[in-house]
């Protein structure tokens, strides 16, 4: 799965939880889930669980704490996919 494919999947995952339409429309690797998309910490858990389901991976606590923007999410997803 290439990076662009992962970004597209992430885009549809974060859509229902995003509170900033402009930031969502302009989503890039540097987009921050909390400060840009204004996803609250409770919904961030749902984003992570949706990522687990979509990519069929398990996110541990340590990875979860790092997963605060699109770029780190991509890194973690690629790492977990490579470990499968």
């Amino acid at each position, binding site marked *: 799965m290439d990076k662009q494919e992962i970004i597209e999947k992430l885009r549809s995952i974060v859509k229902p939880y995003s509170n900033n339409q402009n930031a969502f429309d302009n989503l890039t690797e540097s987009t921050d889930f909390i400060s840009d998309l204004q996803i609250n910490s*409770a919904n961030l858990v749902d984003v992570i*669980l949706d990522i687990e389901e979509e990519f069929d991976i398990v996110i541990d606590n340590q990875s979860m704490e790092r997963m605060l923007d699109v770029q780190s999410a991509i890194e973690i997803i690629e790492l977990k996919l490579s470990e499968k």
Partner: protein
Amino acid sequence: MTKQEIIAKLPYSKPFLFVDELLLINENRVEGIYTFDENSDFYKGHFKDNPITPGVILTEVMAQIGLVCLGIFLVNNKFNKNTSIALTSTEIDFLKPVFPNEKVTVISEKVYFRFGKLKCKVLMKNEKGDEVCNGTIAGMIV
């Protein structure tokens, strides 16, 4: 942890403690009961001369039994006086009215408990066994 120990650990007191007894608890499920005291303050105003339990109070009963009791059980000994919890979302359908002195049973099933967030499917029944409300409630350790 015993059912009594869980109730003792609840961070609520009168007039905002809405758990009388737990009937069952395990890592996926909790059932508990509460009887609405007819002298509760909210009945004086909801509604004028026509006391009916407010939906927000039904939601609170479902959250205290269905989410907080189960959460304390799951977190176990790590739950103490300094643990801070917060309700994060509710989505409830209300089906029937609940009147003063009615005893209700809350049944809650865990959807997930991950990264400090607990989400449950919760329903409330009256003494006749009719469902009075149901939905999804989530909360977090903050």
